[in-house]
């Protein structure tokens, strides 16, 4: 009985309920888009953009501008700058991301130092904060999650085609640049709305680990799109609860949980492959 009371204790707090809802939806959303992130080798873009948006978040906190407007605008500018710099082929997209996003991150840090009074909410952006979750965050995450779901369902074949085989998709009259643009916008929106809970530093992990774990469980693209959000949302839900009881950071707990899932799946998948090979050896 005491055990049961302990488990449900955090549910007495409104902030925890809000945080839990946001984290669970965010986990599903990141898991869904993470499939495209890992298959397209975009994990560095997710990592970079989340750092770039930090600059925007800091600036909007200092300037007392609405976070979504400020950080969103900043993210957009960073994305365009990356595309612009990457067009110089000698530099390369990965270096372009490195230049633009670290500069944006540094600017955010400098603003934080200079105008210390805003540092509290900036820290929340950096590490994520369950306490900071407002009702508008729930609406924002839910909206982006529905949008993401609609994009993936309605654009399923175009997304799959241009991810698997860009050149041929283009020949087959798929507007590949448009598809890629939509995907990038979705990832940016995801970063924007989940950052206050998960935190800039760890969000890139959530865009990669659940999808990577799911990838080892199936060879079917459509099944991957189910399994990855499932892993993402379950680890977020459990991680949020654990973080309350263990008194650890919510973001750190969630990512560690995801890492554990990854290690377990990795080990199981490895053993299964070895067994498959061994049984083939008997033939």
């Amino acid at each position: 009985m005491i055990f049961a009371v302990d488990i449900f204790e955090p549910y007495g707090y409104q902030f925890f309920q809000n945080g839990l809802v946001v984290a669970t939806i965010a986990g599903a959303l990141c898991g869904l888009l993470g499939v495209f992130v890992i298959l397209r080798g975009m994990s560095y873009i997710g990592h970079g953009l989340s750092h770039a948006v930090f600059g925007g978040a800091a600036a909007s906190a200092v300037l007392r501008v609405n976070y979504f407007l400020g950080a969103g605008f900043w993210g957009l500018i960073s994305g365009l700058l990356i595309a612009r710099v990457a067009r110089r082929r000698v530099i390369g997209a990965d270096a372009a991301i490195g230049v633009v996003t670290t500069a944006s991150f540094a600017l955010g840090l400098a603003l934080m130092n200079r105008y210390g009074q805003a540092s509290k909410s900036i820290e929340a952006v950096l590490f994520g904060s369950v306490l900071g979750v407002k009702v508008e965050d729930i609406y924002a995450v839910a909206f982006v999650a529905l949008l993401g779901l609609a994009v993936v369902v309605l654009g399923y074949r175009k997304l799959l085609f241009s991810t698997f085989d860009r050149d041929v998709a283009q020949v087959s009259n798929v507007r590949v640049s448009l598809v890629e643009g939509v995907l990038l916008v979705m990832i940016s929106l995801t970063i924007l709305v989940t950052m206050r809970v998960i935190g800039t530093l760890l969000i890139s992990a959530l865009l990669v680990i659940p999808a990577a774990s799911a990838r080892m469980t199936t060879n079917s693209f459509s099944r991957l799109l189910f399994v990855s959000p499932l892993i993402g949302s379950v680890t977020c839900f459990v991680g949020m609860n654990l973080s309350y009881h263990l008194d650890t950071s919510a973001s750190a707990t969630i990512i560690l949980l995801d890492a554990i899932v990854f290690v377990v799946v990795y080990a199981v998948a490895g053993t299964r492959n070895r067994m498959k090979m061994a049984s083939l050896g008997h033939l």
Partner: protein
Amino acid sequence: MRLFILSDLDSPLIVCEHVSCTYGNAPVVEDVYLKINRGEFLGIVGPSGSGKTTLLKAIIGSQPVAHGSIETKPDLTIGYVPQVETVDWYFPVTVEEVIVMTRSKTKLWPRITSKERRDVRAVLEKLGIADVASRHIRELSGGQQQRVFLARAMFCEPDILILDEPTSGVDVRTRHEILHLLADLHDDGLTILLTTHDLNGLAAHLPRVVCFKKTVIADGSPREVLTPQVLETTYGAPMDVLEHGGMPLVVDHGRVAMRGEGK
């Protein structure tokens, strides 16, 4: 499958005029003239780095043309088969998913319909791999892999089939299979354009061969085109052309000399 109308036979599907393409400032394709008529079966041969893949990409529209023009028949549908080496075989898709993804235009709901399933089955049967539909692409043999991508190209009922190095990285038996398969498709009325560096195994069997090095060196039947002179210009190395079973057989000078020394 599409029925071809005979009166259409001599209308050009693709006309390249004075086509040049560049990478940075370096020209890789220069002043190319090439006309492809309906019902033709032609191969572009040339050494690696000769720009034949670039020309192919220009024709399919994924490589910008710096000068000149490429005109295609209005509403030309191209079935493109990429090089097997460029495919990500670890990508999580089944054969059925690979083929069906080409029909993305008007579909809102992604689920594969039973009609599509029947169409997939029909095209796989035509290519002799009816039983692989539900398999992951990595679980296929080299010949099956090539056929799956051929099936995908055929699925949109193209006017022309374009293949980039269809026999690179496959064994002799698979090469034979692919060649026969393409010949059958051509007999059914399909127009086929391919690139290859395989002179004897593939090019010599085609009705029309284009020797290519930055530009068209020679264009005609294998007998007309595969001559020591043309080949030396194309490959930059002396080659002999023998006759074997009524077909030209290209022999590398270096190889003959080495064998001679060995004896």
